[in-house]
Structures are given as structure tokens and as C-alpha cells.
């Protein structure tokens, strides 16, 4: 009895000691892999992690001469956050960011789903594939090109729509510089750009639905609309909710590039979002500390939103991490 016990004890000790003894060896054996990782890791450290440290200038009186380290602390440390919250822009920026995101979510959710349903219901599969291919195309156009297309149709002086309005005796509508129209144009062009691309994930989800359900439906004499309602939509419900939640995580983004390309001074009251404002205040007016403070404000809330929405998504049955 004593023999196995000792060997057992030895086995345990060696197993315990093993990782400690082997770790430097394991690192040494993998040295070539660390060498491969080096450029990429360095890049992440410099261009992703240094800025996270650099965000301390939000709490400093940053000036170009002293740089990030030597610039003195702001007094009080939350000076620039206070300045932002108390500025007349605060409410407007928050409202614009929030509303534009909200409209994009509200009106942008259904079109890709409807399109995916149409594709999957179409009996002529080659035709459906062809349409599908056409529908992805706008996803790859830049916002500037899309803005160019919009001017061709909506420009006050030369746009197609205004020429028709003129022909019927109406006054030209300044679509692109009007506060009444600007958000609709943002949301509309966003839907146009991504309706096809966004449908891909729904099509994958529809393809994953058990085909016997449809056979059972057919045997019961259910119409195709009824089958969509009772089989297809419940089958992709989880994906729909998941995507909606994930989009909530990026609520404060609202589409910097799109808005930067399309907006102009006339529509600032309805179009200016946090990112566009940070760009103007920080990089155009060179108010680095204020810009950093607002950026940090946005990043921090963004982090909470992403983590929160992901926790929600996981509860719903499938987070992304």
C-alpha cells in the first residue's frame, strides 16, 4: 500500500512543478512565434494602447510645447468635462447623435429582413441570385460617391427631382441644406447602402431553418404568407434580436464619415454629432484637451453600451464573445 502512495505523491509533485519548470522552456521553444508577433503587437501598443494612455490630456491643460507628459493638470481635473456638459452644444449633440442612431435602427431594421424573405421566397433562384448580387453593390461605394449620386438627384440647382418640381411649377427644395430633410436623407442613404449587405445574415439564418417544418406546413395546407409568419419569422427571431442589440452597442457612433461628408453649416442644428464636433473642436480649432475629454466621454459610454448589449445578447442565447 505504501508503494503506490509514494509514487502517487511523486506524480502529484511532478505534475505541480511541471508548469513552473516548463514555462520558460515553453516560451523559449515558441520564440520564433513571438518574433512573428512582434511587429503586430508593437503596432497595437503604439497605435491603440498609447492613445488610451494619451487620453489623460483630457484632464490636463494640453499645450503643444510641453506635450502629453509635461503639460500641467487642469484645475479642477474635470474642467473640460464640465465645460462640455455646460456648453450650449451638449444637449444638441447628444440629441442629434441619439436621434440619428435611433432612426437608423428603427427604419433600417425591417428592409434587409423583408428583402431576405423575398429572396428566399423567390422560386427562380438564378433571378434571385442576380438581384442579390446587384443589391450588395452600394455597400462598397464610399460615402463621397454616394453624396455625389445624391447631388445628381437632390441638388437645389441641378438635381433631377428639383427639375421635375420646377416643371410642375413648384419651388425648388434645398434637400441637402435643409434641416427638415437632412436626417431623412441620412437614414435613407444608409438603408440604400446596406439593404443587400445586411440581408446576408438573415438569409443564412433562413437557410438554417428545419425544412421539415415547411413540409408539415404544406401538408396542413398553410399558405406561403402563413408559413412566413409562423415558420420563417420565428425561425430568425433570435438573429433579429441579436443584431438589434449589437447595434445598440454602437449607438453613439451614428455614422461619423457619412455625416462628415454630407453635412454643411446650414444643417448643423440637426446633423452635428459627437464625432463631428470633436473633429472640429479638436483638430480644426486645436483644442486638444476639450476634444479628448468629449472623446473619452463617448468612448466610456460606448464601452458600457457594448458590454451591456453583449451581456443582453448572451442572455438571449448567443453573444459574440
Amino acid at each position: 500500500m505504501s508503494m503506490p502512495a509514494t509514487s502517487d505523491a511523486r506524480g502529484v509533485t511532478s505534475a505541480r512543478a511541471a508548469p513552473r519548470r516548463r514555462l520558460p522552456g515553453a516560451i523559449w521553444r515558441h520564440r520564433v512565434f513571438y518574433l512573428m508577433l512582434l511587429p503586430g503587437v508593437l503596432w497595437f501598443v503604439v497605435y491603440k494602447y498609447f492613445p488610451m494612455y494619451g487620453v489623460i490630456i483630457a484632464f490636463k491643460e494640453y499645450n503643444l510645447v510641453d506635450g502629453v507628459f509635461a503639460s500641467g493638470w487642469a484645475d479642477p481635473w474635470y474642467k473640460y468635462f464640465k465645460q462640455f456638459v455646460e456648453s450650449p452644444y451638449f444637449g444638441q449633440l447628444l440629441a442629434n447623435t441619439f436621434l440619428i442612431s435611433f432612426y437608423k435602427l428603427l427604419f433600417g431594421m425591417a428592409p434587409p429582413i423583408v428583402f431576405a424573405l423575398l429572396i428566399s421566397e423567390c422560386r427562380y433562384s438564378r433571378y434571385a441570385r442576380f438581384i442579390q448580387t446587384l443589391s450588395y453593390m452600394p455597400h462598397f461605394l464610399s460615402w463621397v460617391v454616394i453624396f455625389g449620386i445624391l447631388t445628381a438627384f437632390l441638388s437645389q440647382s441641378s438635381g433631377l427631382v428639383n427639375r421635375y418640381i420646377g416643371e410642375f411649377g413648384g419651388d425648388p427644395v434645398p434637400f441637402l441644406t435643409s434641416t427638415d430633410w437632412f436626417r431623412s436623407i441620412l437614414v435613407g442613404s444608409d438603408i440604400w447602402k446596406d439593404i443587400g449587405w445586411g440581408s446576408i445574415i438573415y438569409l443564412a439564418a433562413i437557410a438554417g431553418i428545419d425544412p421539415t417544418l415547411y413540409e408539415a406546413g404544406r401538408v396542413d395546407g398553410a399558405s406561403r404568407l402563413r408559413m412566413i409568419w409562423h415558420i420563417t419569422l420565428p425561425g430568425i427571431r433570435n438573429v433579429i434580436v441579436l443584431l438589434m442589440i449589437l447595434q445598440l452597442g454602437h449607438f453613439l457612433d451614428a455614422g461619423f464619415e457619412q455625416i462628415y461628408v454630407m453635412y454643411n453649416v446650414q444643417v448643423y442644428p440637426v446633423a452635428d454629432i459627437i464625432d463631428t464636433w470633436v473633429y472640429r473642436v479638436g483638430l480644426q480649432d486645436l483644442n486638444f484637451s476639450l476634444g479628448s475629454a468629449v472623446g473619452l466621454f463617448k468612448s466610456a459610454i460606448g464601452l458600457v453600451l457594448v458590454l451591456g448589449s453583449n451581456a443582453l445578447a448572451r442572455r438571449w442565447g448567443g453573444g459574440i464573445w
Partner: protein
Amino acid sequence: MVKSSLTEDRVFNTITVVLLAIVGITAVFPLLFVLSMSVTPYAEVLKNGGFIVIPRSVTLEGYRQVLSDDHIPRAFLVTVFITVVGTAINLLLSFLMAYPLSKKTLPGRSLLLMMVLFTMLFSGGMIPTYLIVKATGILNSVWALIVPSAISAFNLLIMKSFVENLPEELFESARVDGAKEWRILFQLVVPLSVPVMLTVGLFYAVQHWNTLLSAIMYVNDRSLYPLQVVLREILVGAESLDLVEAGAKIPSETFKMAAVIISTLPMIIVYPFIQKYFRKGAMLGSVKG
């Protein structure tokens, strides 16, 4: 009963086909309209009430103006450069990280993955990133358009999970043959990863072709402006008249539309050939995300 469901089916099919056609036309018509406008003399456009799909008379005047413009040809070259060189750098760095990170035995692997993942959740923001770009000495150079976006964490993770799923036995047998890890990476892993490389490479290339924000943030020198920035200036300058100084020439519609087409031309030409890789990529992205 059977008959009525047949009619219903036929109606349903027709509606589906018609609605799909509407979506398809909506997707391509705007760009076709711009294309027609770019080759039609403006007087002709006005005469036909502005609505032209197939131009009756063709002029290449707009394209001639684009090619002899002060900024566009140069901006085109800048954009081609950042697309080609940028994508090559993207892919090289991504492979160099994806292969080691696919090794489950690598000590510190999960820590490194966490490091990559966290950058997708939180960022220092626009201004601190600008200051780092400045501190690394690439501000106002063409590298400012390439280096700050050298790796996308998202694309890296897509690549890593692809390499992870390559059969380990292949690497083992190569190792038995005495191949060094560098050779395994470039002669085994890279050739086997062509599908994911095409997909990810195309994502990167499109992103470079459409480069706008890094240029407006990091570049002041007009000769380094990429195509999208120059195109935006042309379009905006014409749209808000207060930006056009008195006496400045207002670009013609034909010229503007030709500039739009030139800016998206490579995409239009290669799109039919590459769209199937994009579709695969969207799937990868949505499943692995």
C-alpha cells in the same frame, strides 16, 4: 381548393419577382444615371427634362476635364498607392499575427487575444490617436494614410480562426521534414489560406480605396490628398455656394459626375468578379464576429 392555392401561388410569385426587380433597379439605377450624366452634354440633359438613362449623344468632355484637372490625376495615384501598398502591409501583418495566435500551445496566447479584442471595445479617441500619429513622425505623409489602419482587429480574428482550422497534421509533417516555422508560414499556411486572404484582402482594399477620414485628420498637404477628399471638395464646393469665392469657376455637372465615376471606377470594374468573395466574407464576419 387546389386551384385556388395555385392561383395564390402564382400571384405570390409575381409579387416577389416584381418587388425584387424594384430593389435591384433601386440599387443600380442611381449609379447608371450618374454614368449617363457624365457622358451627356449638359445642354442635352436639360433638353430631355434631365431624365436620361441611355444618352442620345455622347461627349467625353467631362472625362477630359477630369484628366486635365489640377488635383484628380494625382489624387488617383495616391489612392492607388495606398490601396496596393496598404493592403500588402495589412495582409503581411495579419498573417504574422494570425499564425502564432492560432497555436493553442503558445504561452500568453489568451492574453494577446484579449489585447486585440479590447481595442474593439474601447479606444483612446480621435485626438489622442492624432497625437500618437504626430509623435511617430508620419503626420502629413502618405504613411499617415496607411500605418494607423495597418491592422483591423476584426479582420485579424477572421484570419486567425481560419488558420486555426487548417489541419495540424500538415504542420507536423512539415516540421518532421525539418522545415522552419517561417517556411511553414509562407509556404504552407499562406497558400492554404488563399480563400480567407482574398476575402480579408478585399475588405482591406475597399477600405483603402475609400480612405477619407484619416486623410482629413492627418494630412494637410494637398498633393497627398486621396481621391475621396478631392472628390468631396469638388462636390461640396459646388453645392454650398458660399464656399465658392466670387469669380471661382463652378464645376460643370458633367465634370462632377465624371469625377464621381472615376472615383468608383475600379470598384465597378472588379465588382462582378469579386462579389462572391465579399459574400463569403460577410458570412465569416457575421458568424465569427
